[in-house]
């Protein structure tokens, strides 16, 4: 599950730090204490910046870095396609073999395919993506968005 690409992003995150934005959200995963504060800035329908601060496991950190790398500069429609494709991959329980289209769309993010086999870690990988979706909805004045916390199920 720890592909070199993931470790690389974890050790050398892209675009980390909070910069100016149109909207800010704070998402947490109470299961493991992962947290992210994320801001988006739009120029028209172009993703101009995604900046973030957070703490958490390598998967959640690397995933935020990959998100920054992938989405900044993209048109919103394209960014959403990427987000949906990543979501599909992460919910595949290891059953989905990324095809060429997906690989082209997701670039480094296909490295997370292995994570989808680990239900406990999927929400780590999705934390920043859900935050981005939520922040984007806020920035664009849409209602709704994802609930702001993943639900937890405790065990001894």
């Amino acid at each position, binding site marked *: 599950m720890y592909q070199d690409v993931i470790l690389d992003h974890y050790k050398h995150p892209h675009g980390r730090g909070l910069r100016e934005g149109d909207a800010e959200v704070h998402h947490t995963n*109470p299961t493991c204490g992962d947290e992210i504060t994320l801001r988006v800035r739009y120029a028209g329908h172009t993703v101009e910046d995604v900046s973030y601060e957070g703490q958490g496991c390598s998967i959640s950190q690397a995933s935020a870095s990959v998100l920054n790398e992938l989405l900044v500069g993209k048109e919103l429609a394209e960014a959403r396609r990427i987000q949906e494709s990543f979501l599909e991959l992460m919910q595949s329980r290891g059953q989905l073999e990324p095809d060429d289209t997906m690989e082209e769309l997701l670039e480094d993010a296909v490295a997370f395919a292995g994570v989808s086999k680990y*239900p*406990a*870690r999927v929400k780590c990988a999705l934390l920043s993506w859900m935050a981005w979706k939520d922040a984007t909805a806020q920035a664009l004045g849409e209602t709704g968005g994802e609930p702001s916390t993943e639900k937890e199920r*405790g065990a001894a």
Partner: protein
Amino acid sequence: MKTTGHGLTGLLDTDAIRKDFPILDRTLHDDARLVYLDNAATSQTPTPVLDAMTGYYERHNANVHRGVHVLAEEATALYEGARDKIAAFVNAPSRDEVIFTKNASESLNLVANMLGWADEPYRVERDTEIVITEMEHHSNIVPWQLLAQRSGARLKWFGLTDDGRLDLSNIDELITERTKVVSFVLASNIMGTLNPVEDIVRRAQEVGALVVIDASQAAPHMVLDVQRLQADFVAFTGHKMCGPTGIGVLWGRQELLNDLPPFLGGGEMIETVTMNSSTYAPAPHKFEAGTPPVAEAVGLGAAVDYLTGIGMERIQAHEHALTEYALARLAEIPDLRVIGPASSADRGAAISFTLGDIHPHDVGQVLDEQGIAVRVGHHCARPVCLRYGIPATTRASFYLYSTPAEVDALAEGLEYVRNFFG
């Protein structure tokens, strides 16, 4: 001419089925072969269910949820997989509506407690009413008595007709605008009566009361479809449906489970905890405090696979044929009085009766000496005995492995009992 079991139609291949139940080969009192007719108390457990549980412990055992190690993931997948199986078995709209409890009694208490602590409009309190029936199992009486005492609500109930059916004649006076909840048994454990769900649900919905159905004696024996029942909550128990002890189920409508408060607090049911306050996980976890009955859920999942592998319609047809035959055989025994519906229409496979003035304890004991296991007493439904003016009954109850030969053994055993005390 005596009624015989030859030519009964709709029977299962019990020779094959009985091979899955090692206990049915037991002999008692030296040489009597076990004739197990106490299925309404608990069913026997087939080998595939035992193997599933042993396999769980020998290969996958771990505490569920949130573990990152392989065993924890496997255990979680098995536990949650069992939830999927139960959801499919009762045709639940969502798997998240299936709550694992320790038995049907806890399921029913869970509902009573949720309603006692609920906000409006669900809250049961002074000046509101709870409606049950006179044929409930104590597990669907006492929780409501406790709730009534503790909340100040009033407890009311449907009476019974002479032939063991609910008396619905005063339904409109019983279920009123004040009624918050109506709770009743789908199949009576003492009389076998199948109750008219639709009539009661319709009236309850008219007045906006919640409906709770105790399906403990239905889930093992027939297709249970929570959507068709149109109830709000349905409770049943593992050990009566080829599953293990230590597990029960409460199905509840999603929006109710979201709105209602938790019951037991602890690990597994929380979202986040500080010393000052906690928030709760969404259902079903909100209602599953502590380490759940993991192996038992795995066993119940295997039981449901086993039952559906045979087919619930076929099981029901088998039991129906046996019940019809048993009612005919019992009718031939002098002084035998069936307590409950005398015909096999709208009736499950539990038959209660008295035999002259021979006390049921004596009936049961002398049958036991012949290897025939029946239950005697009030069957946790004492108000039914009071209603019919008897101290107790003898009850024979069938399941998918029961045979016409066992019905014959019962009838002959009862003749012997009569002569013994005659």
